[in-house]
């Protein structure tokens, strides 16, 4: 049984088959990349995995458990976190508050419990704050804790989104084009961060257009084109694959 797998996953928008019968498995503790031209269905695939979209057919499994019928908040509680192609931070909130919200996945304060057991609620609030500060610290942005999150530079917002995703203590982290819109220096920083995240035992599924980054960090690559998986293999195999080369050359 694989750690994480999608099986024959499909999803259409009207007449457009955005994801078509896609299957692949992800090994635990690996960095698995999904690449493909614009509109290939990569983000749609992530939306299906995270539960933001329902698949028309197919299955998604984490440690064998089916996820495809669960609402997004339950999938998050099962240990899947994600970042977005166009960063989605919470407005009117500080960096620290954004990261603390990630911790909420791990908080068991129920509906009425928060009001009925105030001392416990208060302790939990303190530990959430403490742990979130530590995460900011390990990502090197502790000094931004009190800054308004959405007014930061784009590169910093990316890191805050990473921090929020890590705060959920995921076992599988989905990264949608983490290097998009970043300069070379920032891209290097992100690459280091991703390697570091994997070293901590988190499995990474990453979408990225930056080929040198992908070839550098990933163990395994799946290639999508027009919703279909056209190839899969190690970076070396993918670089030699004729279908892949055709799709990418055909693009320009």
């Amino acid at each position, binding site marked *: 049984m694989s750690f994480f797998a999608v099986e024959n996953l499909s999803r259409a928008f009207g007449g457009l088959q955005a994801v078509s019968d896609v299957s692949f498995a992800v090994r635990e503790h690996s960095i698995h990349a999904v690449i493909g031209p614009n509109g290939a269905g990569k983000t749609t695939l992530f939306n299906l995995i995270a539960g933001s979209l329902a698949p028309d057919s197919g299955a998604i499994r984490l440690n064998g458990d089916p996820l495809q019928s669960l*609402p997004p*908040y339950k999938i998050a509680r099962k240990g899947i976190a994600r970042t977005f192609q166009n960063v989605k931070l919470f407005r009117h*909130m500080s960096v620290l508050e954004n990261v603390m919200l990630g911790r909420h996945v791990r908080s068991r304060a129920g509906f009425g419990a928060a009001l009925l057991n105030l001392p416990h609620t208060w302790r939990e609030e303190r530990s959430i704050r403490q742990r979130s500060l530590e995460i900011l610290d390990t990502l090197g942005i502790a000094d931004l804790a009190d800054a308004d999150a959405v007014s930061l530079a784009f590169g910093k917002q990316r890191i805050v989104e990473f921090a929020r995703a890590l705060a959920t203590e995921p076992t599988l982290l989905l990264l949608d084009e983490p290097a998009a819109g970043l300069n070379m220096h920032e891209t290097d920083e992100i690459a280091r961060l991703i390697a570091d995240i994997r070293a901590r035992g988190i499995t990474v599924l990453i979408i990225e257009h930056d080929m040198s980054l992908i070839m550098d960090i990933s163990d395994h690559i799946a290639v999508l084109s027009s919703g279909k998986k056209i190839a899969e293999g190690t970076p070396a195999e993918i670089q030699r694959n004729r279908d892949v080369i055709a799709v990418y050359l055909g693009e320009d």
Partner: protein
Amino acid sequence: MTFEHVLQYLLAGITIGSIYAIVAIGFNIIYNTTGIINFAQGEFLMVGAMTAVTFSRLVPLPLAIAIGIAVTVAVGVLIDFVFIRNLKKPTVLNMIIVTIGLSIIIREVALHVWDEKVRSLPYFTGDEISSINILGAYISPQALWVLGICATMVVLLNVFFKYSVMGRSMRACSANPVAARLCGINTKNMVTMSFVLSAAIGALAGCVMSPITQTQYDCGTSLAIKGFTVAILGGLGNSTGAIIGGLIVGILEEFSISVMPLAYKDAIAIAILLLIMFFRPSGLFGKQEVSALKEF
């Protein structure tokens, strides 16, 4: 006008204005998590006060008020479960019309349960003739109760939204529902929670104002209009704006008595609402983005 007169009007205005502010904050809480303007907000005050009046003959006053709040919260939760939680994709406009319908239904039910008589809770301390002299102006101790309880509610709400897991989760839902879900937040429960909070603060405000303004089955309508005006004036979703807006409307209303016949008092809020709609639809403190209706 003498200084004492000005002070008298000012105190009265602040008192009623703080009630308007609570109604507006009730609007804001539900608006922030759902994008819906809940026009049954005024009925929360009526149901809370009427229930408390009924029970005040059977049990001590604080308990009667607690029952009033509990019943109102139950009504709020019922509204959420029946009309919002299980709908696939309710549009904001449809929901606004639904809440207007609900306010009418609640009023009709209240008419049957309590008839059309005007009622009121007993004064929390003293009676209708006791008063406190503040620099020459006279204020009923109940007005101090109103101010104290409204201020306490505002402080507690702020602490809740800023320093609690659930409060922060509710803010996250309003800032970005997609990201909130991916943080493991059950957004539907947060919507329910927003109805619980709005109903609870509405009911408590209804009870504390009841000895001064009295309560009738249809008193929610004008409160909703005033509260809505205040919410728009302060910028929808902005609770600091709601407090300032509430005080402005309350004070203008009270001063209007000195220059206009009493009958025009209720027209003040409507006039303010129209002016705001014409000249500054996003409110005094609102940002443009907030004034656009939110979709789910």
